[in-house]
């Protein structure tokens, strides 16, 4: 049971770990790290779907008849690009937040906002 | 001008007036002349519809179809005709009065006052002529919204608090209950048109009809059935012309008018008396009638007393309609007219006293009648009309209400009506007595204390006196020409019988 589905266990572990980091950490950079781990779990999930036992790379060649499904790879390539863009934007925002508040800790930012009100 | 276009004009003319008033906000004389002109035009337009209605026709006008199956539609029937004539006719009188009052009182924001007043009248016309329940509801809401600035006119904290109560109760009940009732009716019957004999009969069974009746009666907050009457005393912070025309005539009468319309044309009197779920309404109305009169007795502030008196009188109308007999409905319709004239006269007097002497409490009015004889005579006439003493119009409507109670076999309500009339006597006539027969308080020269004496008080401004004269003449005239009203309302009463 465990070994048979070990890739999915990895997915679940990564997903929960990433999600936990996003929720539990106050540091904005760490949140983004968590977000990345969270997204990475999905990449693994998709790649797992595409794998066919004994299949090769999906390029037509003599002597092979079983290929892995290429579609999840293509999809996840797109998802990775989206992930990169999200990370870049998130980090850029963190840089700006650091300039505006002088901190990247969530609770300190909250405090600064409350003082302003 | 055909009658259908007359309906459109009746609603459009006051709106046009509003626009002109806003445009001339820098020229008070022109602004008020426009108001007068608009009021007179409106009255003539309304009168032009009268012959057709008397001839038994039902002029109608349909605007765009608003939702599938529901249009904004108008249809003139006798009750609406009567109400429209009262409201538009008294608007002219009130305008004269307003000019005297607002100038004499040096009110601010007069342009907003006149503009909102005109919108309120326009929506009252819409209510009068509404051809289906949704149209009525729409104008009902417009009326609430347009009178809010009038109630909160002074912009003082009390005025704003009163405005909140006013808006809260009226909008709350109308959206929470009335709209739900309308939607439910639409769901049950697929129509919202006012039809003789009602649309709900056969579509709603016993308890459901009872619930619907409850939703309608408490949804129409403007009818001030207890315990949702609080807005009316609150609205008394408004300038007196507003209290006079809107909170003795247009707004509250729009409420009871809607109640009568709902009972006669949505439920149908036959259906209502057959289901026996309307008994509670009669008892609530009877209770409101007596209780409000008792509260009125305790009030020293003149306008507050009149407000509670109004609450009590509104329940006469509701009671009459709830009796669901021919005479009861007739009495209801007549009482709308009779009370309108009587109460507006009383409010005119209250305002005149306020302008001339800055007195608002009844206990301060000892001997004031000798300084302001015309005002107090008018007050006496109005009071007698509200009480129902001949030769004032009010006596007819109370007569028919009692006949209606007897027809329905509810003799207890005859007793209630009599008790209430006695209470009316008890809270209205002593004011006149005080004015004429009690000695005026002595003059004090102590600068620190408020001067309670009547030194320097003169009769109210001429504009006010003129208005009072007309409305009190109306009270008397209604007694002698009551047959005209009966004739107008006959078709409705017959259908109810």
């Amino acid at each position: 049971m465990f070994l048979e589905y070990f890739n999915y266990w990895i997915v679940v572990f990564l997903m929960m770990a990433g999600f936990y980091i996003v929720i539990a950490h106050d540091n904005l950079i760490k949140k983004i790290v968590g977000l990345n781990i969270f997204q990475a779990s999905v990449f693994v999930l998709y790649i797992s779907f595409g794998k066919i036992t004994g299949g090769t790379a999906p390029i037509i060649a003599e002597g092979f008849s079983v290929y892995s499904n290429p579609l999840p790879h293509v999809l996840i390539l797109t998802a990775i690009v989206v992930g990169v863009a999200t990370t870049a934007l998130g980090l850029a925002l963190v840089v700006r937040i650091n300039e505006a508040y002088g901190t990247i800790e969530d609770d300190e930012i909250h405090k600064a906002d409350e003082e302003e009100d | 001008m055909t009658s259908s276009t007359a309906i459109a004009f009746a609603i459009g003319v006051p709106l046009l007036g509003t626009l002109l008033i806003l445009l001339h906000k820098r020229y008070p004389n022109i602004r008020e002349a426009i108001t007068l002109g608009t009021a007179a035009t409106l009255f003539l337009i309304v009168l032009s519809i009268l012959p057709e209605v008397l001839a038994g026709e039902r002029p109608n006008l349909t605007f765009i179809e608003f939702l599938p199956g529901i249009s904004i539609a108008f249809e003139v029937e006798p009750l609406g005709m009567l109400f429209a004539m009262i409201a538009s006719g008294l608007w002219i009188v009130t305008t004269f009065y307003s000019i005297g009052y607002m100038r004499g009182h040096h009110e601010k924001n007069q342009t907003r006052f006149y503009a909102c007043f005109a919108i309120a009248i326009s929506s009252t016309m819409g209510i009068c002529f509404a051809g289906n329940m949704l149209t009525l509801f729409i104008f009902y809401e417009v009326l609430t919204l347009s009178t809010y600035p009038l109630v909160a006119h002074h912009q003082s904290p009390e005025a704003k608090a009163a405005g909140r109560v006013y808006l809260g109760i009226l909008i709350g009940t109308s959206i929470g209950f009335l709209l739900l009732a309308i939607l439910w009716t639409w769901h049950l019957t697929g129509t919202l048109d006012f039809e003789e004999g009602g649309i709900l009969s056969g579509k709603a069974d016993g308890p459901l009809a009872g619930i619907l009746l409850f939703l309608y009666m408490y949804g129409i907050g403007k009818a001030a059935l207890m315990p949702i009457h609080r807005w009316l005393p609150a609205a008394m912070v408004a300038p007196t012309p507003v209290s006079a025309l809107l909170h003795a005539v247009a707004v509250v009468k729009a409420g009871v008018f809607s109640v009568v319309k709902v009972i006669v044309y949505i439920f149908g009197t036959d259906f209502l008396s057959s289901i026996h779920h309307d008994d509670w309404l009669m008892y609530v109305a009877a209770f409101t009638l007596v209780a409000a009169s008792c509260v009125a007795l305790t009030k020293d502030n003149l306008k507050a007393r009149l407000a509670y008196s109004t609450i009590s009188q509104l329940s006469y109308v509701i009671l009459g309609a709830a009796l669901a007999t021919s005479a009861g409905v007739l009495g209801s319709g007549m009482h709308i007219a009779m009370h309108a004239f009587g109460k507006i006269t009383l409010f005119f007097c209250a305002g005149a006293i306020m302008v001339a002497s800055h007195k608002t409490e009844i206990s301060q009015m000892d001997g004031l009648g000798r300084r302001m004889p015309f005002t107090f005579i008018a007050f006496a006439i109005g009071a007698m009309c509200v009480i129902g003493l001949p030769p004032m119009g009010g006596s007819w409507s109370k007569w028919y209400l009692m006949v209606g109670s007897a027809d329905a076999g509810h003799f207890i309500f005859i007793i209630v009506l009599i008790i209430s009339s006695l209470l009316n006597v008890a809270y209205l006539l002593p004011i006149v007595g005080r004015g004429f027969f009690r000695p005026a308080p002595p003059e004090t020269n102590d600068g620190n204390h408020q001067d309670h004496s009547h030194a320097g008080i003169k009769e109210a401004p001429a504009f006010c006196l003129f208005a009072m004269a007309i409305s009190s003449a109306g009270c008397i005239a209604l007694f002698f020409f009551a047959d005209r009203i009966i004739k107008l309302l006959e078709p409705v009463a017959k259908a109810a019988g």
Partner: protein
Amino acid sequence: MVAHFPALLVIIPLIGAPICMLVRVRDWSWAVATICTWASFAISWLLLQQVISDGSISYQMGGWAPPIGIEYRIDMANAFVMLIVTGIGSVIMPYARESVRAEYGVRRVYFFYTSYLLCFCGLLGVAATGDAFNLFVFLEINSLATYVLVGMGKDRRALTAAYQYLVLGTIGATFIVIGIGLLYAETGTLNMYDLADRIEKVGASRTIGAAFAFLVVGISLKLALFPLHLWLPNAYTYAPSMVSAFLAATATKVAVYVLLRFLFSVFNIELTFDVLPLDYIFAALAVIAMFAASTVAIFQENLKRMLAYSSVAQIGYIVLGISLHNAAGVTASVLHLFNHAIIKGGMFLALGCIVYRLGTVNIHHLQGIGRRMPLTTAALVTGGLGLIGVPLTAGFVSKWYLVIAAIEKGWWPLGLLVLLSSLLAVVYVWRIVEVAYMKPVPENAEQVEEAPSSLLFPTFILIGASIYFGIDTDLPLDAAIETAKQLTGNGE
């Protein structure tokens, strides 16, 4: 060319975005954005006509037939949503020029319009596509551009708002990808119509159930369904006015469309509502949203924030209609989607006018604003009446249908709750009225003029529309009824 409209609708803003970046001259980039928006509007209008007369349109990207290729399928539902998006965009663009200049400045303003066009393109792509994964990609294009736009606000809190939005939005998007992935794993297809067929055959397997849960949660995050709305108030409050208006009117609406599409077209009604108790969950959340968010709105001092919370409440109405899952309920939802877009868009534009002149929308600084900026305030209050659902405004029509739907379903207490919750709207709208009209102008207040006509005109178009569509209900009502018919008939 007519046959290519579904693709062109998405491509035009996509091409506009890089051009915007290349021209770089301030007014030119604005002009490019405006022209693209207007062109899209014209196309979406024609598309809607085409759908009305000929039924659904299918467009095969790259000539590859579905289910292998990506298909764009335009039916009533998305044609209508695209019309809303492009229509709102077309009205807002003329407004944007002055407003953005005042709130964002002129330096590198071409970035602003590039982001706007990408956001616009993403929304249209989400609406147009018939491919589940393609939908995710466009959703992310739209979201990323939106984060940028929100972060362009003047206040530094715009940055934290954008960050918060980014984190939550990304979580939502990832949930959606997981859901789509699971669907793919179970059925082996990504085309929505193909998916619908295969899901029907598979039935409610555990994978489908999990996919469904991930999708619903992910989409609910994007549409700010209570209690997943946390990103919304800050984002709307601190974004530039033009962005607030555009987002409030379109972004959540498109998310609602996605929800409708998945619930009704991809998963079928039996699965969604009979096997899974989604109707009760949605109804409960919607009612809480209506009351909780409206109550919070009452206590806000920043008017933009107040409107933002009101948006959360209004989304509650929309979701409530969906939870009834009968034709009338969905009609009410779609209708409210349209009406709320117009009303809220118009109100945010009106607030933008105030920001333009006063630099603040804090209620304490707006005393007597009714006298200082009469037209703007009139627009704001008229919009507010629409939010309450006063008759003769668009808001009334949708509430009418919502309550009727609730009664038809037999859940009449919900109808009563809808009406009662609109009383809360009365309270927060009346706060504006009291401050605007019933308070004197502060003595030390500087002299302000009415907002310039380039701002007022678009504001009045939207507010006017909210009145117009409250009286002449044909267009939105027909479209909503057709959409509901299509969706509740399981996409046929």
